């Protein structure tokens, strides 16, 4: 287990280095941040001074090296646009994104799994058929369209829910939360639904397919032949085996949720990290973009590592195979 973790940490460091270098290569094609920083009639000399000041005259490799060296010490530099340290900006935005992703993931699981089980157990019911069709829509309609539709229905037409922002948040010092105020909770509903919809339909279809597969397995047939009641058969024997692959996919998708949050945050003006990133792209705010990409790749690696660890716990066969092979 320990060796596994060490390997993972080295992998994570490598992934982040690669992401940072790709990011740096990309930034060269994003244009010149200077034109956003100075007034349109700034002189050539002003421009040259600003370039020098921001270190943009150095070769990309030198800029990259400087970024890595500073980042290793936890310093991601200063945002061009906000005049503030990037790490502060990201720390400020993290709670917004985390709460949104948490609620969306919870929603996707809480609805996706039961619906998947239902459609698997009643494959020919009209409700199941209907759910299947709806889930197809959920998978194929782009999320920003769902988001705008939700705003149109629930904000503009019905006037029930806010169309933008986080509502009133409570500052706990190290974390700002929207969970503690009615307006904060209301503001969470639409973006969370928009973000969850795709994952929910994905989980539902996955659970359904896996469950149908498992229900055809021999051990279920034997259990049935022994006269084990249906409820126990479905929920104790079948469901457990269904959930193992679902867990892996869900773990991978959790990273996807953070990435997809960029779109949701843009549509709902949700002041999270994704929104910060989009604005940085518009402004060519290189330090913010680089730090965000590195941070997200780090989150991806962490989640995947956790999923692998959980997988070991959930599936005894893996443990049995690994133990002698790695001598732990």
């Amino acid at each position: 287990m320990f060796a596994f973790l060490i390997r993972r940490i080295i992998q994570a460091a490598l992934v982040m280095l690669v992401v940072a270098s790709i990011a740096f290569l990309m930034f060269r094609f994003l244009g010149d941040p200077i034109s956003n920083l100075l007034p349109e009639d700034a002189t050539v000399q002003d421009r040259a001074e600003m370039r020098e000041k921001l270190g943009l005259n150095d070769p990309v490799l030198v800029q990259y090296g400087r970024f890595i060296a500073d980042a290793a010490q936890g310093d991601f530099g200063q945002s061009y646009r906000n005049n503030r340290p990037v790490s502060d900006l990201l720390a400020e935005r993290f709670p917004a994104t985390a709460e949104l992703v948490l609620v969306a993931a919870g929603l996707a699981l809480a609805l996706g799994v039961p619906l998947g089980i239902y459609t698997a157990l009643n494959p020919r019911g009209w409700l199941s058929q209907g759910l299947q069709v709806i889930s197809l829509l959920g998978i194929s309609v782009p999320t920003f369209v769902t988001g705008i539709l939700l705003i149109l229905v629930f904000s503009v037409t019905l006037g029930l829910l806010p169309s933008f922002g986080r509502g009133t948040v409570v500052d706990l010092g190290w974390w700002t939360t929207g969970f503690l105020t009615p307006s904060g909770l209301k503001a969470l509903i639409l973006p969370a639904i928009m973000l969850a919809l795709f994952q929910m339909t994905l989980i539902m279809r996955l659970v359904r397919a896996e469950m149908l597969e498992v229900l055809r397995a021999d051990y279920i047939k034997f259990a049935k032949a022994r006269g084990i009641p249906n409820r126990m058969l479905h929920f104790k024997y079948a469901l457990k085996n269904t959930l193992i692959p679902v867990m892996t996919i869900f773990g991978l998708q959790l990273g996807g949720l953070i990435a997809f949050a960029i779109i949701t945050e843009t549509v709902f003006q949700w002041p999270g990290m994704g929104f910060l990133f989009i604005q940085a792209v518009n402004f060519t705010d290189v330090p913010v973009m680089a730090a965000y990409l590195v941070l997200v790749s780090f989150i991806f690696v962490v989640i995947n590592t956790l999923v692998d660890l959980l997988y070991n716990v959930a599936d005894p066969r893996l443990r049995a195979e690994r133990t002698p092979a790695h001598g732990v």
Partner: protein
Amino acid sequence: MTPRKLLFTVTSALALACAGGAQAETFRLGTSGDLYGLDPHSMTDSFTVSFLNHVYEALVRYDADLKIEPALATSWEQIDETTVRYTLREGIKFHDGQDFSAEDVVASVKRAAHEDSPIRGNIAGLIDAKMVDEMTVDLMLDGPNPLLNNFLTNVLIFDSGWLEEHDALDPIDAQKGEEGYTTSNANGTGPFRFESRTPDAQTVLTVNNDWWDEPQHNLTRIELNPINSDATRVAAMLSGELDMIVPSPLQDAKRIEATEGMHVLEAPGLRAIMMGFNLSGTSNNPNQEGNPLQQVEVRQALVHAISYDLLRDKIMRGKSRNLGGLVAPQVPGYDEAVDEIPAYDPEKAKQMLADAGYPEGFSLNMNCPNDRYVNDAAICQALAAMFARVGVKTDLTAETKAIHFERARANETDMFMLGWATLPMLDGYSVLSAMLHTPEGQMGTWNPGGYSNAEVDRLTKAVATELDAEKRMEMMIEAFWIADQEVAWLPLHAQPLSWAARNAVKIPQTADDKPRLWLARIE
């Protein structure tokens, strides 16, 4: 603090805020971008500076008609060619209770003109400030400067004691890597006090009841809500969560007008949209030898090839104002004769091209931004189609602004789009010095095509230092006339401003696209 206790604090704070006045009027403004920070000396973003104008004030300000009027200064006089003396208004207090005096003006001007100051470029020629007595200040210039007051509208005044206390007398240096106190705190003399700010979410101002001026507004609170996405901003307006949005997308104007209790405010703004030419000896189009655009006749032919009315009615939905000159009518330097637009006549254009030696037309590259101006890429597509009709083959590239302006500035194209509002100067000199003067040193910084005319250069230099307003105006118009005859640039239109508001909101729509909420009322 337990969550319950927190909740209680929040709700009681809300209750207090509501109980503040019997007819408490909160103005909820939705904008497409957020403030860059709270320090008006730390960036040149015109939206940020204009919003901070609610908190901070300058010695002089623009009224609703964009004329200079006294603000923190009551009068001024030219002492000699390089010194102007300002008499300050008595009895003004900063939001933290400190008195306003000459010391504050000196500290603020020094801060803005500091060599590390990002806004130094906006106050070219202003070198130093000296205190004469408690209520009098001398501003030192490097030469006669007819635009000093225009510049000063942007030099917002801080309290010197407050700056000193928070170690902020020098401007924020992007290089230091530390956060300036003034980025997240504010203390001005303006009609509203800064209350709180969550970047990209909300900035709140509350009314300053001790403001020196007679308030024309009836607001008690301003909430600035940046909403980046056009669709969401309009939705928030339609659902009644906002009182006004700036800008309101052109394509949604009908929808908003059709909603009860809302209206769209539209007017042509200051920003002139135009096309710049590559006037060097070689074309950037690989299929073209030499550079036909160097000939005046060819450029004149292109003007005849453009149907200005079609651009306005189809692309701009009838909201823009056709421009024949390089500045909008509100800007000093505008002249009706220069503004005249040659008739649309493709046959004549073809004839002129043939006379100039291009009977078969020619090829050129055109570059446009697709995220900077209203319908920018669509305008260029229409232009390309119009040019095709007279035999000019256009290779059009539309791309994001950061790349577009970099290419345009490097003269890597043959025609490029540029919009110029003359802000913050609000004077034709801005166009003369940056776009028409031969590129050298501080001049011609946005003249990548290399337009050069000795007479225009001479007039521009004279305009820079001429203090007689009438003479100055004549010289500006003469320079614009020459540029117009030679088609130095190809002006298209004044870009429309579009705001949307509830009917209860009364606000003057100023041509510089800056909502001045101290002139707004909610009825």
